[in-house]
C-alpha cells in the first residue's frame, strides 16, 4: 500500500513539474513558399448618381476592379448591402428603394444583375496574373420611392480556391 501511495506521489510530482512530458504539444512554424498572395483593388470607389430622378440613371464611367494574384485558381464574389436588406439602397433609418441596385460588367450590352444575392464568381481565373474588370452600377427609382439620402456598399471579396 505504501509503495502504491509512493508511486502515486511520484507520478503527481512528475506531472506537476514536467507537464510537457505527458502533453508534448509540438509547435511547427510553417515556412517555405506559403506566402502566396491575392490583392483586390477598386478604383473610383465612390461612383455617385448625384440627384436621382424617376427612371434610369446609369453610371457611364465604370469603376475598375483589379485582381493581382499568385494563385492559379482564384475568384471574386460581389455582395452589396445598404443596411438590413441586401441589394437595396437604403436610408440610415431603414427605408429602402423599391427597386434593387444593379451592377453590370459591360455597358455595350448591359446585363444588369440584381445584387440582392451574392454575385458568385463575379471574376474568376485559373492562372496567376493581373486581371482588370470594369463594373457599372445602375439604380432605377420608382414613383413611390420617398425622398432621402440613400446609400449602399458593394464589397468585392477575393480569395484563392
Amino acid at each position, binding site marked *: 500500500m505504501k509503495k502504491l501511495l509512493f508511486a502515486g506521489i511520484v507520478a503527481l510530482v512528475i506531472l506537476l513539474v514536467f507537464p510537457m512530458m505527458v502533453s508534448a504539444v*509540438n509547435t511547427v512554424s*510553417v515556412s517555405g513558399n506559403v506566402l502566396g498572395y491575392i490583392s483586390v483593388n477598386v478604383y473610383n470607389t465612390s461612383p455617385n448618381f448625384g440627384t436621382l430622378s424617376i427612371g434610369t440613371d446609369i453610371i457611364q464611367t465604370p469603376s475598375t476592379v483589379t485582381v493581382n494574384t499568385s494563385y492559379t485558381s482564384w475568384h471574386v464574389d460581389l455582395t452589396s448591402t445598404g443596411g438590413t436588406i441586401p441589394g437595396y439602397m437604403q436610408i440610415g433609418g431603414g427605408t429602402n428603394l423599391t427597386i434593387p441596385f444593379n451592377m453590370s460588367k459591360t455597358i455595350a450590352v448591359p446585363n444588369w444583375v440584381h445584387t440582392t444575392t451574392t454575385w*458568385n*464568381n463575379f471574376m474568376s481565373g485559373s492562372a496567376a496574373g493581373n486581371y482588370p474588370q470594369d463594373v457599372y452600377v445602375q439604380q432605377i427609382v420608382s*414613383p413611390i420611392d420617398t425622398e432621402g439620402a440613400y*446609400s449602399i456598399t458593394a464589397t468585392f471579396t477575393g480569395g*484563392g*480556391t
Partner: protein
Amino acid sequence: MSVCHLTKIRFPVFVLVLFFIAACAIQPAAALKVEGAKIMLDVVSDTNYIFPMAVSINPTDPASDYAVDVLGFGQTVEGGSYTPLTAADDTGAYSARGLVTVDSPVIHIEPGQRKAFNATIRVPQNIGDGGRYALIHIHPAATGGGQTSFATAIIVPVMLTIQNSKLAETGTITEMGVGDIIAGRPITVSTTLKNTGNHHYYGAVNQITVTDTAGKTVGTAKGDPATNAMIPGQSVRFTTPVSTPLAVGTYTIKSDMLLGSGAVLDSKTTSVTVKEAYIPPFQESSAKVTPDSPATLAVPEGTVRISFPQGAVLAETTVAVKPYTGTLPDLPAGAQAGTTSFSVDGLSGLLAKDATVTVKYNNADLAAANGDASKLVLGRYDRGETHWTLLPTTIDKNAMTLTASTNRFSTWAVLAAPSSGQTSTSGADQKAAATQSPAPGSLLICGLISLILLARSARKK
C-alpha cells in the same frame, strides 16, 4: 435617344418632386492585399502550427482598420463559392473554426504599410479522420460614407488534412432536374451534389448521357470541372448544357458525378419527353473577310448565313458568329423575342457595303408571333446607341428564313414585332421588304414629297 432622355420626357413632374441628396464623400481607393491567403496543410494530432500571414494597403490609401474573423467554411449551392458561416450555422463535424486563432481580431494599417501576423492552428489529440475546414475573413472594420461605395475583402480558406487518417471522398446527388427544352437553346441539366465524405475534393464534374427508349445513347455532355473544392457537408449545383438534336419521343437522362480521377461519386437518372423536335444552338463559326472578294459566313447548321459583297470591308478581318445565351437587352415596346439570337463579332465600324443576313427561324420563334410569320423581323441591338433597330426584313415562309441588309453588326435576335404586313411573305421570289421601324425623319420626307407630287398633279389637271 437615351433612356435618361426618355425618362425626362415621361416623368417631368416627378423629376422636380423627387430628388435625392447625394452624399459626395470622397472615398479612398479600396485596395487590400493578403499574403498567405490560402492555408492548406497536412497536420498531425497534438501539434500547433504557426502560419505566417500579412495584410497591406497601397501608399495612396488612408489608414484603415481591418477585421480578421475566423468563421465556418460554407459554400453557395450556385457556383460553390466559399462563404463564411457564423458559429450558429457552423455545426458540421469537420469544422476547424475552433482550431484557428489569429493574433488580433482587428489590424490597423497606415498608408502603404504591411502588417504581418500569424494564424495559429491548434490540432488536438485524437482529432479523428479526414479534413477540417474554416475561413478567415479579412474585411474593412467599417465601410460606407458615400452614396455608393465599394469595399474589398479577402477570404482565406483553411483546409487541413489529418495525416495518416482514413480519408473518405464520397458524394450523393440530392437533386437532379432538366430545364425547358427550347429550340435554339441548350438543354440544361442541373445536378446537386453533396459531399458526404470527410475530406474535400477538387475537380468534380458532371457527365450527362442521353438515351432513347431502346437504350441507345443519342447524346452526351460533360460540364467543366469544378474549380472550387467541395467541402464535407456542403452541396453544390452543377449545371451542364446538353446540345444534341432530339426527335419527338421520351428520353432518359443520366447524370454521373465524377471525381477528377474518373471515379463515380453517384449517379441519377430522370426521363424527359420531347414534344417537338429539338434543334440545338448552332456552333460558333468564323470567316475571313477581305476587301477584294465577296465572302460568306455560315454556320454548319444553316441557321445563320451572312454574305459580304466585295468591298464591304476596307481591311482583312475575321468575323465570328455565335449563339447569344445571355439575357437580351430590353426589347422595344410590344416586341417579343423568339429563341433565335446571336452575336456577330470582329467588325468594329460600319461596313462600306451592306451585308446580307439570312436567319432560319424555328417554331419557337413563330410561337412568339402567335404563329403569324409575317410579324417576324430581324432585330439588331446597336451597342453604341443602346437600342434595338427592327430591320426591314424579307420572309421566305417556305424556307422559314428571314433576310435583312445591314451595315453593322452586334447582337441579333428574331423578334415578333407588334405591327404586321410590312414584310414580304412570298416564297422564293422575295419582294422588297418594307421598313419595320422607319425613322420619323424619313416618314416626314416621304410625306412632303407625296404632298408636292399630289399638288403638281392637281395643278396639271
